[in-house]
């Protein structure tokens, strides 16, 4: 039975072998830009935007997120909770529901997608995937 286990293990490992063959044919080996770079492209795009914007948002300040859809805003907000743990969140959308105030209390507005700042946050910094807008009076 010992040989059966070993042969069986080798057969099972053909699955990973095929997976790696396919991966190496279609991807270059490089440092990933986000933790979900090669598995969840949409989450990866959110992540790259949030990571690019992070240096512009000082710890202890406050932020909100604007994005094209409530789903974008919900997922961006959950992702941001790990990257912006030392910043106070005022999400415009939480669990797909618009929030009272729409994030107007936040000093920094992270705009995902087309870089267009809200009228009350005119100071704009372009980053990968969007912009960081700063309110004069949050």
């Amino acid at each position, binding site marked *: *039975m*010992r*040989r*059966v*286990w*070993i042969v*069986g*293990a*080798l*057969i*099972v*490992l*053909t*699955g*990973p072998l095929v*997976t*790696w063959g396919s*991966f190496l044919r279609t*991807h270059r*080996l490089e440092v*990933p830009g*986000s*933790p*979900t*770079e*090669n*598995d*969840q492209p949409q*989450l*990866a795009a959110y*992540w790259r935007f949030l990571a690019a914007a992070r240096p512009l948002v000082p710890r202890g300040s406050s932020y909100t997120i604007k994005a094209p859809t409530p789903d974008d805003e919900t*997922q961006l*907000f*959950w*992702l941001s*909770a*790990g990257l912006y*743990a*030392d910043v106070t*969140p005022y*999400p415009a959308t*939480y669990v797909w529901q618009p929030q009272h105030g729409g994030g107007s209390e936040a000093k920094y507005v992270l705009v995902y997608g087309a870089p267009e700042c809200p009228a009350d946050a005119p100071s704009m910094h372009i980053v990968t995937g969007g912009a960081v807008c700063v309110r004069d009076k949050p």
Partner: protein
Amino acid sequence: MTVFAYIAAYVLIPLFGLSLASSIDSRSARIGFAFLVGALLLMIEATLFTMIGIRWSIIGLSLPLLIASGVVLWRTTRTDKSVCATPFAIAIIVVAILHLLLSIITTQSINPDYVLFWGTKAVHFAMSRSLDAGYLLSRYAPPRIDYPPLLPIVQAWGLLFSHQIPWITAAAMSAVWLVAAVPVINWLSGSIHATAFWTAAMAASLAFCGSGGNAEAMLVVYISVGAAAIVARRTSIAAIAFAGAMLTKEEALVTIGAILIGVVIYDRGIRRAAIFAASSAAGASVWFAFQKRFGMHVGYDRVTLTHTFHWSNLPTIFREAPKSLAAGCWGLSWLIPLAIIFYIAVRKPRNLRDAIPLLVPVPLLFAFFVYLYLQYESSLAMKMWWILPRLSQPALSLLILAAAFAAGDRMPAHD
């Protein structure tokens, strides 16, 4: 530097668990099990610290556990036995673990839940140096606040060293759980060849399911070690492992319940099953006590059962199941142990007797999956594809271990 500091934190964890692993007479298995126990003790201690208002620190969390391990080691005299291992089997194990590790490092197998809530919780817990009930109960709480906190606490432990989370490295530590389990499974099963198969199958499955950074590797390892320890008649090891499983994910409740039915059938009595049930309940009660202390909803909140059955779901369930059970190798990791069990059932049916505690849960778990999926009202195929590959992993592990014990090709241990 952040990466090395984070990894250094994990190196300490086996030292925390040596106090409860000292009875194991194989050095590699002892270290592997000490890692599993160390994580469990660290989680319990960190939770109790928060409940009594002590903020976490490296010294504060380390010292009690190191002293306990030191005292036990001081009093223990041992003659270790080395479990037989063949180079070819070891090579297979190394390749399998590298597959999982590299799949995570190249971000093919990092779970979205890791960046959406597991890792997020860890960051907040480490920042507040507590199991932050304020965050869990905040207006903008993360998803799944009812999940037990073993994983985020272990991840937060690493953050106490590194201060910033090295996201991909922290996810890659999921492979360490498999590394820790290998010598324990080998020691319990006595078969390095079956262990090599188990490792290959579980690594392929964990990578396939995207288990980097989430709790799947932990859950599979605790359940597998506990189940193997039952057959190897190492009651205390099984009891500890099940407590760990209960503090990892609530899915453990169903799997352990099914295993206990197998234990009752095998033992024709409830003594051991009662011990395992009590240890599982004790594990869960640590989390429930925390929930009660801070005014959270007490209990698990994962499975929503409507008890309304949609029998029209049956064709979809049976059509989609094979795809979800591919386990990264076209389902071969299921089929090979099934073939071995079938062969043993025909040639040496008495050998199957000892594997009963591992065999009984497998059909029970699949019956539970069908019961669950019959209640889904919409998007069944998509939800099965999301959930079943992960949910079925403990059953896959139990099946392989059942075949390993039934095959009975234990290699002799050496003094």
